[in-house]
C-alpha cells in the first residue's frame, strides 16, 4: 500500500456531534474521504469490506472501547493492518504511552480544534509514512 499521501480515513466515534464535526473538518480542510462508524462492532464489519489509509478510533466507547476494537482488528484475518490513531480525552503522557504500546501510531487529544485537527492528523501521517507503515 502506498503511504506517501493520506487520502481516506475511517473515523469510529459514538458521539454524533464530534463525529460530524471531525468528518466535516477532515473533508473540508484536509480534502480527505472520511467514512464514519458509530461503534467498534460496526467498524469491524466495515473494515472487513473496505480498507482506508488510516483508522481514527475513539478510545472510550460503550460496548466495545477503542483498545478492544484495535485488538479485534489485529486478530481478524479479514482486516488488513491499517494504521490506527486514537482520539481521546485521556491524553496524559502515560495514556499516550499505553495506547502506543497497544499498537497506535498516534493520539489526537480531545477536545480538538476543528480548524487545526486536519493538520494534526497530517503530521501524524507524515511520521507513519516516514517509517513506512503502521
Amino acid at each position, binding site marked *: 500500500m502506498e503511504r506517501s499521501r493520506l487520502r481516506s480515513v475511517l473515523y469510529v466515534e459514538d*458521539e454524533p*456531534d*464530534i463525529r*460530524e*464535526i471531525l468528518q*466535516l*473538518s477532515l473533508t*473540508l*480542510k484536509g480534502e480527505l474521504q472520511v467514512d464514519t462508524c458509530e461503534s467498534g462492532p460496526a467498524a469491524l464489519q466495515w473494515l472487513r469490506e473496505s480498507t482506508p489509509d488510516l483508522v481514527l478510533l475513539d478510545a*472510550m466507547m*460503550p460496548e466495545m472501547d477503542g483498545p478492544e476494537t484495535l485488538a479485534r482488528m489485529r486478530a481478524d484475518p479479514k482486516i488488513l493492518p491499517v494504521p490506527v490513531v486514537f482520539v481521546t*480525552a485521556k491524553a496524559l503522557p502515560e495514556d499516550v504511552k499505553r495506547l502506543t504500546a497497544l499498537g497506535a501510531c498516534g493520539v489526537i487529544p*480531545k*477536545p*480538538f*480544534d*476543528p*480548524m487545526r485537527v486536519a493538520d494534526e492528523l497530517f503530521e501524524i501521517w507524515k511520521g507513519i509514512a516516514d517509517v513506512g507503515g503502521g
Partner: protein
Amino acid sequence: MSAADELLKKRRAELARKFLDRSHQEASRFREVLDGARAGAVFPEAAAFKHFAHRIHGTGATLGFESLSFAAAAFESLLSDAGAQDVLAEPALQALRRAAHVLIEQIDELARRHL
C-alpha cells in the same frame, strides 16, 4: 477566511446549539437524580453520569465551550476516583454533588445565553 473555514464555523455553531440543548435536558434529569441520592444507598446511575461527563468533557471545548469542558473533566475525574461503586459514602457523594452542580449551573447559564 476561506469558504471551507466559513462552512466549518457555521456548522460548528449549529452543532454547539444542538449540543447545549441536549445537555441542558440531560442536566435537569441528573440534577433530580443527585438530589435524590443517599449515601450508603445504591446509586445505579453511576454509569450514566460517567457517560454524561465524558461526553461533555470531550465535546464541549471542541464546540467552543472550554470552561464547560473543564468542569466536566473535574466531574469525570471524581467519578473515576469513586470507582465502579454503586454505593457511595457520604464524603464521595458530597464531592460529586458539588462538582455536578458546578457543571449543571454552567450548562444552565450557557443555555440561557445561547438557546
